[in-house]
């Protein structure tokens, strides 16, 4: 790829980027959010058409105007969000969209799929329906699909974001096998230790420009971060000691059954203390969302549950179970919640910053009309203190980048000086710089004496940041461990098995 330029309106996503992808090599593509990694790879796989530049495949000048062109050139992309048809089986998904002008010979497809699986060490059942598959199986299917179409150049966009450590290991083994076979592989990821583990070469993008590439064995995490961010960054996550220690939130026997009658949480009990950062780990969909939403009053808890919340130490506790968000608000309890779905729950995408600031407080104050001065002041403060990048205060938040959207949301929730702060995947999709800003903010709340609950997916971060980690497995607590003396493997194991281990720490 030489001098690729791609613009969206006035935004230059890729500015004269040149990149070389070699056969028999795993190339890691690094960069902060919005640095143009995905755009560049989408250009290669025919989803976007570049405004300038030229792509060569095997020294031949080519033009890729559609994903079909890319397939013909042997380029295949595995997207972050899977593109599979749930109702079809694995084999049917593989041949979907292949216009072969003859009857579908599923038997031949199955045989070919088995062959690919054996060659690279996949495990996949061609007849299994997609809706029965786990996230990791779906990802495997996406890779097999691309290989079946004869791809020699594979692009994986953040493949490990949804996997457990064990599944990630499996994926890396497959990637190594494919490398041995002479395939060219590009992996986009935010996790630097994975880059060090799997890749042969690293290419770094920053703000749409190509910074450089370097063999992985000649570099270290610190150097890569500096290349990405453009300046030296401290990579240590602080973990201030716990203070205070009074019980802020005592959850007992919490069971949640969702609208479809599925038991999402099964008899969960735990305590969160003031001045403590409690991490919650688990494979996505293990009940994390329901846990936080039940505390916030958004999910009805089954009878028998008790959620005792002590806003001020020494005062009597308030029962939150069975209360709606409005009831909780009326109690005057300051409970901050950063939900997983930022634009679908935490913020209103079409509204500007001040209007979003007043989402939780709009009804306060006398009179029929809203007071917009206070939120305006708050919006200005949040923008300044958290360095939110926005064209103006009056830009709809939907138009901001993911990291800035999250800063707006976290900024608002922290502004209420909460005694309990709950965050769900607070750094999902955020780059290193912004992630560290968020960690720092959480630590500040913890030092203020708030109980902070952090639902996370990156185990390295959980282990570095949290005082205690509660591990969920299929809606049940498989253990609560001390973040200071537990290994990633132990937590990973607890995520998939109910071990029963429970450290009495805290």
């Amino acid at each position, binding site marked *: 790829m030489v001098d690729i330029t791609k613009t969206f*309106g006035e935004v230059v996503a890729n500015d004269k980027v040149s990149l070389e992808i070699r056969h028999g090599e795993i190339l890691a593509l690094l960069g902060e959010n919005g640095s143009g990694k995905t755009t560049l790879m989408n250009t290669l796989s025919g989803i976007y058409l570049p*405004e300038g530049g030229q792509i060569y495949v095997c020294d031949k000048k080519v*033009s890729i*105007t559609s994903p079909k062109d890319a397939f013909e*050139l042997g380029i295949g992309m595995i997207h972050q969000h899977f593109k599979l048809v749930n109702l079809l089986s694995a084999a049917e998904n593989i041949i979907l969209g292949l216009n072969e002008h003859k009857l579908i010979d599923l038997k031949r497809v199955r045989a070919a799929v088995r062959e690919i699986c054996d060659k690279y060490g996949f495990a996949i059942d061609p007849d299994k329906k997609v809706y029965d598959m786990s996230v990791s199986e779906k990802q495997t299917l996406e890779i097999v699909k691309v290989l079946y179409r004869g791809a020699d150049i594979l692009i994986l966009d953040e493949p490990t974001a949804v996997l457990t450590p064990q599944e990630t290991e499996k994926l890396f083994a497959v990637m190594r096998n494919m490398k041995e076979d002479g395939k060219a592989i590009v992996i986009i990821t935010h996790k630097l230790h994975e880059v060090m583990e799997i890749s042969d070469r690293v290419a770094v993008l920053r703000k749409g420009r190509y910074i450089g590439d370097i063999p992985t064995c000649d570099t270290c995490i610190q150097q890569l971060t500096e290349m990405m961010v453009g300046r030296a960054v401290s990579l240590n996550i602080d973990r201030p000691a716990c203070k205070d220690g009074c019980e802020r939130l005592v959850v007992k026997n919490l069971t949640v059954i969702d609208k479809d009658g599925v038991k999402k949480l099964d008899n969960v009990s735990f305590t969160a203390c003031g001045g403590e950062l409690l991490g919650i780990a688990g494979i996505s969909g293990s009940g994390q969302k329901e846990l936080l939403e039940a505390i916030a009053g958004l999910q009805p808890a089954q009878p028998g549950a008790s959620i005792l919340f002590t806003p001020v130490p020494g005062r009597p506790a308030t029962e939150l179970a069975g209360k709606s968000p409005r009831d909780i608000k009326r109690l005057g309890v300051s409970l901050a919640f950063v939900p997983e779905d930022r634009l679908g729950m935490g913020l209103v995408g079409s509204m500007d910053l001040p209007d979003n600031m007043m*989402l939780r407080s*709009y009804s306060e104050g006398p009179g029929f*009309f*809203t007071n917009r001065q206070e939120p305006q002041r708050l919006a200005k403060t949040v923008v300044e203190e958290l360095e939110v990048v926005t064209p103006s205060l009056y830009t709809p938040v939907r138009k901001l980048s993911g990291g800035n959207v999250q800063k707006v949301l976290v900024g608002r929730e922290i502004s209420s000086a909460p005694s309990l702060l709950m965050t769900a995947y607070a750094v999902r999709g955020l780059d290193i710089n912004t992630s560290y800003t968020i960690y720092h903010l959480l630590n500040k709340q913890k030092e203020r004496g708030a109980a902070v609950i952090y639902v996370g997916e990156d185990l390295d971060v959980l282990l570095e940041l949290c005082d205690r980690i509660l591990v969920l497995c299929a809606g049940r607590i498989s253990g609560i461990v001390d973040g200071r003396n537990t290994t990633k493997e132990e937590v990973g194991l607890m995520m998939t098995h109910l071990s029963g281990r429970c450290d009495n720490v805290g």
Partner: protein
Amino acid sequence: MSVDKVREPFVRISKRASIELWRSWLFRAAALFASLVVCGVIIFALTGLNPVRVYAAMFSGAFGTVKRSWVTIRDLMMLLCISVGLAPAFKMRFWNIGAEGQILAGGIVSAALMIYAGNSIPLVPLLMLMFLASAAAGAVWGLIPGVFKAVWNANETLFTLMMNYIAIQVTSYFVALWENPYGSNTVGVINQLSKGGWFPAIFGQMYLLNVIIVLALTILMYLYLRYSKQGYEIAVVGESENTARYAAINVRKVVIRTMLISGAICGVAGFIAVAGAGHTISTSTAGGKGFVAIIVAWLSKFNTLVMVLISGLLVFLDKGAVQIASQFDLNDFVSEMITGIILFFILGSEFFINFKVRFRGRIKEAGK
């Protein structure tokens, strides 16, 4: 795979990040102009008439005489009133296509008061009573689908549509009941001699009260949606119910309250149609305006001040079209064709406002 095979697509479409206000209105004006040119060509091709004369006739149809101008304004206010009524519901993404029924509900109540109390209660209290009663009737007609939506999540589009047919049947019943003269199957002009319950002329203008009521509603609705706490709740519920629940908003209450308001204003439109314009009631009192108002609401993006312009344009087109149909001995279809072409262009201009289109050849220059 051929070497050096570099293809460019013929057109490229990309979403605009933003567009200046003057530019977007320039696009809309250009669309209006282009549609007039296309209509002109078609009129000339089909009938051989001079299009400029046809357009002059259209203008004369809408504003040719003082009386015509006032009729145009009366109809404009009617359409505007219904559109303003739809605004809160649509802003909440509640597709109230039941304005027709809500208008009729208000209209029946107004007509009943005119018939039974028109000659016994003094005019001003009577009009106030009619205003409130018709608003209440419209509100009830809007409340029913609102409650079903809020409590059982019933599809509001079908529900409000079906409520229209019920309202039409109820109207038929009352038309038969109030038939005058006997055997005509119409209600006829109510209180023709006493003018009981008719809008009084203000400064000699028959329709000035219509203008005052509707413009007041338009401005109040604008303030309500933009600055009130309830308006804020409507916007949040419209965007996402999850966000609304997160923000501790009682979604059911907001849905029901908003449909009460929406229905009430449509009911007032029925009151104006009966007491301020037709002075009678029939199944065609709403006359499809409840559906035209949907177009107005969408084109104005639920901004009630912009609705004044859009309803003005639609009413002007309608009046002008009727005029050319009679003046040049063309039938109604020509007028509908013209309206259709103009709307097509205006709706099409939204595409160019939201997207940038570039043709092959110019891309290379841009790339260099």
